[in-house]
């Protein structure tokens, strides 16, 4: 039996040791905002935030998350009340098909919290572990650039504000 807090909600579930955190979120908790792309840690689509750090949910077993606090894209904002970073993605056309977007957003949140992101090079380096096949990245970089220095931590992560 494991206990996790996801987007502020506590869950307890019995899981098989081999269940990946990404599958746990999607199948056990029905939080399908976390996307599964490569399942080998290359594409970054499944990135979530665990205890304040972005992690690949495909490279972590649910049992390893026992006791952890997790943030997923569902915790950032809602369709009617977007988080500033989500708003920026919309304004800067930083998504097309949307498959990579949850991972881009969660990576972006962690980058914005941890690094000054003074240059676009820093943003590009920070995003280098997330693949997007539509946008060519330029608009994603612009979207993140536009919110550097603004509070984008989101409702669910107030406890982690740094």
């Amino acid at each position: 039996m494991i206990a996790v807090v996801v987007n502020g909600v506590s869950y307890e579930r019995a899981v098989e040791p081999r269940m990946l955190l990404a599958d746990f979120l999607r199948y056990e908790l029905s939080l399908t905002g976390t996307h599964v792309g490569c399942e080998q840690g290359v594409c970054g689509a499944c990135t979530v935030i665990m205890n304040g750090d972005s992690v690949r949910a495909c490279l972590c077993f649910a049992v390893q998350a026992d006791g952890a606090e997790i943030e997923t894209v569902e915790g950032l904002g809602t369709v009617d009340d977007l988080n500033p970073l989500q708003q920026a993605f919309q304004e800067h056309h930083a998504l097309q098909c949307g498959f990579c977007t949850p991972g881009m957003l969660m990576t972006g949140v962690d980058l914005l919290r941890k690094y000054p992101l003074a240059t676009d090079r820093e943003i590009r380096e920070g995003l280098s572990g997330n693949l997007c096949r539509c946008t060519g990245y330029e608009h994603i970089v612009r979207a993140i650039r536009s919110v550097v220095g603004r509070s984008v931590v989101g409702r669910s992560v107030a406890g982690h504000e740094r």
Partner: protein
Amino acid sequence: MKPPAFEYLAPRTLEQAVAALGAEDAKILAGGQSLVPMLNFRLLAPSLLVDITRIPGLDNVDDWDGGLRIGALTRHHALETSPLVRDRFPVLHAAMAEVAHLAIRNRGTIGGSLCHGDPAAELPGMVVLLDAQLQTTQRLIPAAEFYDGTLSTVLGADEILTDIMLPALPPGTGWGFEEFARRSGDFALAAVGVLIGGEVRIVAIGANEKPIRLLNAEALFNDASDIDAVAEAAGKEVSPEGDLHGSAEYRCHLVKVLTRRALRAAWERTS
């Protein structure tokens, strides 16, 4: 792409972990950033994973007689941002910036990277360059004797790496680290680390089956006027294998060029 079934234990002490590793086909799980992809690909099918990350006290970076003692469970991001690492071993600080991507650095551990032993990974090369001593649950192993081949160490099945000790560098040691990868954060096609202090040390990463010191090249170095000759020798001293990312000849060329750059940087940083 789902891992095969396995049993899972998360012991709270090293003794419990060592005992659990007595089981046939047991594997240690630390950050999981190399192991879990291999499980997802089903390249491995261990009967038991022993998650050592719940064992307290193995993730500190502390003074060690002017050098540093680094707990094996220290995450890459903690090393990347450690003021002690930046001040005492700037070459390691520089190398950490090239290790994978943020989400991987948040999870991956120095002990995991060292024990996985990818020849193109930065940390195995760094411990060889810095002449580290590796403390396990059984013995102390010099970094230069830790690898016996690609992805292979001298560790026993129930032996756990616990601490990495980096001896202090002589004051004024110059350093250089140069890496070439296809994409920021990817494994190196080749990388070279250099120290110029009491002696000159040159280590090539990604060029042989394990990180190696280039002793022939080192022996040619006296001062900046030797840099081109040393670089030439370095390119001849490695024996890489070609793959789809680059031919053996190309990698030798990379080692030559990266050695030249790293030596120049190290020479300029000596004081």
